[in-house]
């Protein structure tokens, strides 16, 4: 049971730190949920890519460094500690790429991954539909067979960053008569600028178009943009939610850096004898450390060959609630300066962002059901 880093990890850390110190933009670019900020973040992806830091966990042939999970954790710590910008390519790198590694063809990987790594093509996800929130099995958007491909029609929603992104991926019903709703779904990729696609940005609570509705009207998708077998989309989508991505959805480095910033804010603004605030700041420090060590243990299990299954639900509930509490504490520390929407050091925008945590990627209610039934073995109920 140890927490030491290898010499190689230490060297990797030093290299990442030096590069980031030299390249991280100051002041940070505008919010990535704006047109200007999106462009700036895309440029930052290109810069990261030029230093081969954009996709450290990928094989070298696609622009990565073949980093294992421990190297990845080191990189993430350095990345957030350096105050580097949020990752506009996160959906592609975190969701689509692992699917392509597991289920894509050589041709797809060679065609799709390099421009994803450089930020040239930014991907949006297209999972949810208006009547299918937590209940993905009831998806209705459909793909109809046509010569050399599929024609997609229907409506997707809550497509993060689709307001500005280039392409999207998601599940479409291609065999509507299957008796079980999980069957007959196909995993497809499509161009957001293709004929038949209408993107309607949706403004989140702070007015920023952080996601969009997608209206699809006979959008042609060639066969080469189907991932895996048609009709196997559900299985393919699920197979890449239960692996180590449960650990990698939010990296510990993010919260370690946030907690450090919070302590700085507290030392700068608060009366240290105000124990009510002090206890909440301490809890942020404790929570970040707990999340880091929990992830280290999970990564060690992955490295030892275990799979991460329903345990990722523990992770999801923890970080999403942690993130809100941390930002609430920051706003309370800021007092009257916590009210403006463009409040100090991004705390206000971070708070709005944090509020989505318990809702997306499977609501925390669903996650708790999963924890109770799959980890604790409690009997299924009707909820």
């Amino acid at each position: 049971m140890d927490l030491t880093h290898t010499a190689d990890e230490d060297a990797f850390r030093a290299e990442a730190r030096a590069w980031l110190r030299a390249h991280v933009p100051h002041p940070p670019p505008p919010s990535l949920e704006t047109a200007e900020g999106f462009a700036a973040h895309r440029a930052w992806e290109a810069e990261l890519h030029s230093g081969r830091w954009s996709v450290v966990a990928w094989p070298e042939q696609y622009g990565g460094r073949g980093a294992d999970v421990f190297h990845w954790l080191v990189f993430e710590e350095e990345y957030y500690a350096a105050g580097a910008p949020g990752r506009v390519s996160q959906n592609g790198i975190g969701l689509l790429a692992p699917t392509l590694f597991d289920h894509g063809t050589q041709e797809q990987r060679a065609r799709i991954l390099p421009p994803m790594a450089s930020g040239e093509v930014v991907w949006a996800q297209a999972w949810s539909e208006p009547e299918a929130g937590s209940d993905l099995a009831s998806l209705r958007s459909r793909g109809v067979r046509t010569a050399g491909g599929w024609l997609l029609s229907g409506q997707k929603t809550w497509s993060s960053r689709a307001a500005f992104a280039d392409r999207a991926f998601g599940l479409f019903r291609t065999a509507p008569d299957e008796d079980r709703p999980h069957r007959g779904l196909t995993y497809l990729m499509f161009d957001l600028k293709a004929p038949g696609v209408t993107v309607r940005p949706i403004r989140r609570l702070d007015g920023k178009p952080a996601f969009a509705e997608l209206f699809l009207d006979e959008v042609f998708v060639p066969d080469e943009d189907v991932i895996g077998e048609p009709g196997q989309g559900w299985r393919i989508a699920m197979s890449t939610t239960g692996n180590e991505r449960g650990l990698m959805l939010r990296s510990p480095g993010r919260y370690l850096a946030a907690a450090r910033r919070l302590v700085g804010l507290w030392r700068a603004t608060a009366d240290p004898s105000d124990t009510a605030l002090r206890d909440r700041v301490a809890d942020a420090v404790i929570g970040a450390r707990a999340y880091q060590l929990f992830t280290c243990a999970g990564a060690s299990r992955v490295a030892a060959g275990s799979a991460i299954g329903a345990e990722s639900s523990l992770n999801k509930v923890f970080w999403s609630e942690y993130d809100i509490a941390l930002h609430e504490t920051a706003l309370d520390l800021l007092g009257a300066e916590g009210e403006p929407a463009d409040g100090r050091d991004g705390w206000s925008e971070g708070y709005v962002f944090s509020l989505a945590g318990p809702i997306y990627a499977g609501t925390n209610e669903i996650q708790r059901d999963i924890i109770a039934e799959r980890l604790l073995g409690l009997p299924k109920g009707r909820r």
Partner: protein
Amino acid sequence: MRFLPTDEQRAFTRSLHTMLRAARPPAAARAWAAGDPAPGRAAWTGLAEAGVFALAVPENHGGLGPLPAELALAFVELGRHAVPGPVVETVAVAALLTALGDPAPAERLLPGIAAGEVMATLRLPGTGPYALDADAATSVLVVDAAPAVPGPGSPGDGGSGSGSGSGSGSDVKGHADASEGAHGGDHARDRNGTGTGTGKGTGDASRPGPKAARPPTLRIAPGHGPVRASADPVRRLSVPQGGGEVLAAGPGVAAAAATAVDWARLATAAQALGTGLALLDRTVEHVGRRAQFGVPIGSFQAVKHRLADTLIALEFARPLVLGAAVSMTRTDIAAAKVAAGEAAYGAARAALQLHGAIGYTEELDLALWLRKARPLRDAWGTPAQCRAAVLRP
């Protein structure tokens, strides 16, 4: 004892409710946020005609009041309907001028407040650099540098609210504690009570001692700085300019400011309660309609229990708000502010979670209440400040 609204009070709130529903405040609020105060002003006139502002103005200045119980009931409705504008601040100005007891400034503004012609806003030392909706208000009042009376057990630490004399508001730290300072409290405890992070660095060295304290002044600011949107964009924040006409000065201003804080807290608490009730109503409706896994999500026990807890918090805040309006004691008002502010914020968190992604959008009117809950929780006294006030002997 009959701790229930009277028939007249019920008729009043019903008529307000009907009037406000017809006035469609959500549209007015959206226009207000976009910098167009015209629809909000029209609603304001309607409120004045219904007598809402007159409740805060004494009869001898053209009002019907002071009638805090009716005012609290009215502000629950204002919260329920998400009415935009400096409604709380106008009431606070009325209370301040009434408490000041100086006929000239009172007669200058109070009749206009009662009639709905004056839309006032107010900044006191200790509540941050901003005044709410100064761009739309007809009168921007500022109290500068109200020195605290040292409380027992607070040796040699009587200064408070320093650095606000310039009115520039750039020195946020100077405003740490004066809403409590205006209450004559103990500075050291106030700072611990703020929870606003503005305590440290207030400048112990530069803070004037008790002897150096200038007398507090009440002035009309000649204008305001650029507007910053609050996390609730319907709340438009700006820093009042320095200078302008001084209406009053002296220790009476501090006492009157303390009274203004009481009224502002009471009205904010009532507004927060109404905000929370509206959030709960809309969420109950949503979860009864929205289906997942083949059933309405409102039939899931986790959803039920969260909404039950939301109702409990609101239904125990309600008597605190109405009771504070009846007793008008400082501790009751502070207690009501804590409970209503926290209950409304809890309702907002529950409403957002149970609406799911749709609740996270600006497009749904729900956002008008959602985004207001947290600022109202903190306005005119954070929970920490108000908890400190509850225990002040």
